[in-house]
């Protein structure tokens, strides 16, 4: 394989100049002529029947142009799990009852946000409060209040995964242990709050919506369902997005209400959440109770694993049902688990619902699994690195009926981390400790709960007569660098430069469907689509070049450095620009168009490929305050062929900040369904002084499924971070935890309990 020209080389962001000059436009920034500003009136009760809503006073306020309630909406229900209609449980505005504090019941559009805000105070809602339930274990009891009438036990979804013979294997195991965990939530807290602008065209009856979204297509479908419109009459455009981290997959009240208000007023309507709403009414990480039982041989080989999870789903489905499945899946990674059984239950509760957040179920699952692994290692007297090595997945491993691995660099990652840890952290001082973890993560999901007939990703390449390329992808760059990856892949495939390519991203009207940015799918799925599209265009160029060369069909031609030439005799070839001109002439003057798509086939139930890695964390514990200082991190990852090392590193470091937050300081305490800390003052995140330096090592492999062998990077690194911290704390001061958010008080309490023993 020849060395790549573009792939694998540190490449700056194609959106760089726009972002550093303030010119990049986010939905948050948008204004359109004659635009109105919308605000939502939200329920103060966690569970209540709506008796009446009187909007007459609000309508009279000067500057108010429309006030709507549930009865003014087209009445469609929506949600991401569209194949299971009973799970598309969201309404534009609550019609009969509200199910969490913040559930929207009315919306106002006015000439300024201030007037809309004031109008909310003039809307009179009569509620009949109902008993509410906030805890999953309580919610499934027979006498619990019923949150959705179609779900009498408040069980939103269940999942069962099984292979082998778990009961038999446990009987044969030398060592069996069970651990229980209570794993708490986390708010993704993207810097750009939810924002949408909707513009209804009175002439055609078509709608255009700009939104801070992770998936223009998902939003298009959600709007179509909510508004009972044909998808094709809704155009969704994704401007620059200020982060998502999982809470911008679902269709949310900002977009659907902006749409209805625009349809009612005939004017564009913008709805932007404030930060309090972002914390209290947008999706957060799924909290769960988790019980995990493991059976090992005395040499540490895993024989069986059994897990049960009950998740705190909140008031609606979102992607919480997928999290339920993936948590059960990630409990088996990254170790060979010959016998496995998982039962998961997702419950409804009267709180803002939990959905997908970066690492999508892996974070709590890997925390449980990796801390348990260390405990087992201690009990068996086996080195924690050794036990991981012994059980590590390898290429070709298969979990029957679920997934099969092609590339797998896990062992090399573990080796690298061990080598570096032993080299660097030789001088642990008192109360310092080291924790090691291993992990794996998917490259997009083989899931079609969205119920699409389309390929999971499609792309189009148009080569113009001057050699410039217009690349059309619907993939959603939300900061992770997908735009740059798309352009890099296209450049590599056509043998040209990034400067030759203009990207037209994320517009449902002009690009082929892509399912969006979640479960780390863009590089794998969109990347493959782009490569395929460019490949189709390349075929045309190569054919023209072959004809001009007059060469035998068996001789291969290659493209590189803006030339198209004979592989065996590189000096025999042509400039890309000349071939392009020729090709267009030969095609009746049509520009060169290449269309490609990708959908995983025959790759199991989960993902077409998996990335792997290992992480070492060094901490220092202050025994008197319980403060845990994360001093240093060493991590190695196998992402197949890294497309952009700059982007990959950035993503890994960011994912670790999120992982450390989940583990140490980010907490969403609630009281009767009310989130108590909905501001950046009270919700604590790691800042620049708190972050350790991170050494990152790339262990390249090649996965045949990925574009140029590429796999995902850095959604996986969220999950191993906190168990590595927990394992390091144990190594330092000998205390264990059954959950996360290891705030100083919690650590100190554990230390004192240990002392008392």
């Amino acid at each position, binding site marked *: 394989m020849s060395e790549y020209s573009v792939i694998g080389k540190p490449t700056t962001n194609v959106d760089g100049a726009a972002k*550093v*000059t303030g*010119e990049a436009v986010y939905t948050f920034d948008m204004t359109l002529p004659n635009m109105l500003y919308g605000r939502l009136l939200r329920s103060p009760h966690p569970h209540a029947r709506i008796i009446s809503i009187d909007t007459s006073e609000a309508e009279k306020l000067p500057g108010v142009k429309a006030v709507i309630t549930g009865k003014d909406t087209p009445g469609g229900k929506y949600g991401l799990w569209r194949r299971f209609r009973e799970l598309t449980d969201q309404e534009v505005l609550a019609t009969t009852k509200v199910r969490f504090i913040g559930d929207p019941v009315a919306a106002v559009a006015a000439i300024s946000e201030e007037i809309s805000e004031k109008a909310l105070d003039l809307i009179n809602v009569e509620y009949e409060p109902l008993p509410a339930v906030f805890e999953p274990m309580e919610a499934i009891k027979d006498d619990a209040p019923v949150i959705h009438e179609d779900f009498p036990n408040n069980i939103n979804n269940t999942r069962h995964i099984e292979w082998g013979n778990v009961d038999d294997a446990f009987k044969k195991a030398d060592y069996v242990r069970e651990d229980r965990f209570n794993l708490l939530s986390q708010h993704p807290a993207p810097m750009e709050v939810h924002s949408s602008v909707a513009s209804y065209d009175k002439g055609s009856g078509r709608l255009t919506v700009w939104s801070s979204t992770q998936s223009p297509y998902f939003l298009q479908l959600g709007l179509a369902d909510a508004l009972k419109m044909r998808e094709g009459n809704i155009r969704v455009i994704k401007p620059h997005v200020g*982060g998502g981290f999982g809470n911008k997959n679902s269709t949310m009240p900002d977009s659907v209400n902006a749409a209805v208000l625009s349809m009612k007023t005939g004017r564009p309507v913008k709805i932007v959440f404030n930060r*309090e709403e972002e914390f209290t009414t947008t999706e957060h990480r799924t909290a769960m109770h988790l019980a995990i039982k493991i059976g090992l041989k005395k040499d540490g080989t895993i024989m069986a694993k059994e897990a049960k999870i009950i998740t705190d789903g909140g008031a609606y489905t979102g992607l919480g049902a997928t999290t339920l499945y993936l948590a059960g899946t990630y409990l088996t990674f990254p170790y060979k688990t010959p016998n496995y059984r998982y039962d998961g239950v997702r419950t409804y509760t009267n709180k803002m619902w939990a959905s997908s957040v970066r690492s999508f179920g892996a974070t709590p699952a890997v925390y449980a699994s990796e801390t348990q692994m260390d405990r087992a290692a201690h009990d068996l007297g086996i080195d924690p690195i050794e036990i991981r090595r012994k059980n590590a997945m390898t290429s070709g491993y298969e979990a029957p009926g679920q997934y099969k691995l092609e590339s797998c660099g896990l062992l090399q990652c573990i080796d690298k981390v061990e080598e570096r840890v032993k080299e660097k952290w030789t001088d642990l001082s008192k109360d310092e400790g080291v924790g090691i973890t291993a992990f794996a993560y998917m490259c997009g999901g083989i899931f079609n709960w969205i119920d699409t007939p389309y390929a999971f990703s499609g792309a189009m390449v148009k080569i113009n007569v001057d050699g410039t390329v217009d690349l059309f992808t619907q993939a959603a760059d939300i*900061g992770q660098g997908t735009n740059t990856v798309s352009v890099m892949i296209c450049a590599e495939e056509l043998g040209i430069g990034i400067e030759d390519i203009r990207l037209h991203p994320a517009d449902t009207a002009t690009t082929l469907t892509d399912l969006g940015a979640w479960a780390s799918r863009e590089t794998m799925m969109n990347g493959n689509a782009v490569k395929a599209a460019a490949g189709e265009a390349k075929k045309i160029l190569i054919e023209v070049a072959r004809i001009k060369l007059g060469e035998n069909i068996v001789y291969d031609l290659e493209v590189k450095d803006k030339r198209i030439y004979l592989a065996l005799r590189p000096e025999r070839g042509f400039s890309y620009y000349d071939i392009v001109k020729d090709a267009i002439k030969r095609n009746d003057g049509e520009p060169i168009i290449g269309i490609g798509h990708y959908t995983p086939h025959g790759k199991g139930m989960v993902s077409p490929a998996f990335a792997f890695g290992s992480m070492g964390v060094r901490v220092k514990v202050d025994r008197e305050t319980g403060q845990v200082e994360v001093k240093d991190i060493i991590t190695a990852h196998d992402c197949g062929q890294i497309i952009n090392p700059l982007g990959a590193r*950035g993503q890994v470091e*960011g994912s670790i900040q999120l992982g450390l937050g989940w583990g140490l300081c980010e907490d969403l305490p609630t009281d009767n369904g009310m989130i108590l800390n909905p501001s950046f003052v009270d919700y604590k*995140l790691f800042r620049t002084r708190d972050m350790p330096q991170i050494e990152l090592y790339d262990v390249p492999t090649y996965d045949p499924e990925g574009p140029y062998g590429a796999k995902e990077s850095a959604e996986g690194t969220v999950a191993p971070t906190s168990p590595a911290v927990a394992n390091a704390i144990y190594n330092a001061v000998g205390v264990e935890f059954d959950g996360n958010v290891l705030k100083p008080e919690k650590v100190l309490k554990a230390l004192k309990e240990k002392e008392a023993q």
Partner: protein
Amino acid sequence: MKKELKFVVNGESHDLWIEPKTLLVQVLRDELGLKGTKRACDSGACCSCAVILDGKVVKSCSMLALQANGKEVLTIEGLANGANLHPIQQAFIDNWAFQCGFCTSGQIMAAKALLDENANPTREEIQMAMDGHLCRCTGYNMITEAIQDAAKRLQEQKLQEAAQ
């Protein structure tokens, strides 16, 4: 009752009449259309709205616009020299110091204020200066490296200018 606000933004004079309750960030974004300065919180805790006021970096969301009366404001839009990026902006690009970019304007303005005051800051000094800025994407270290790189570039630029 509206009051007069006369101030200079990015070298241009403005004479506006605004309600006293208007925040500086509202004037910059909504009146003057300078959307590069962002808002990401309501409690003065994230510094996405940072701009430079009379040479000092401040949060434009936590000031009444009228408090800028008679003063000079520099926003992200005022950094580049025509079509030429400022060395700090280029350093941010070259060091992948942003991902979603929403906190970036604030980070760059704070970096500029820092480097104007301290041309050769240590890593610790950079972190102390930048600690008000929340970022959810980068994990911060690459921002620190970009600022260290920017310091070098600015010093080189000074040397070049002195040589001429």
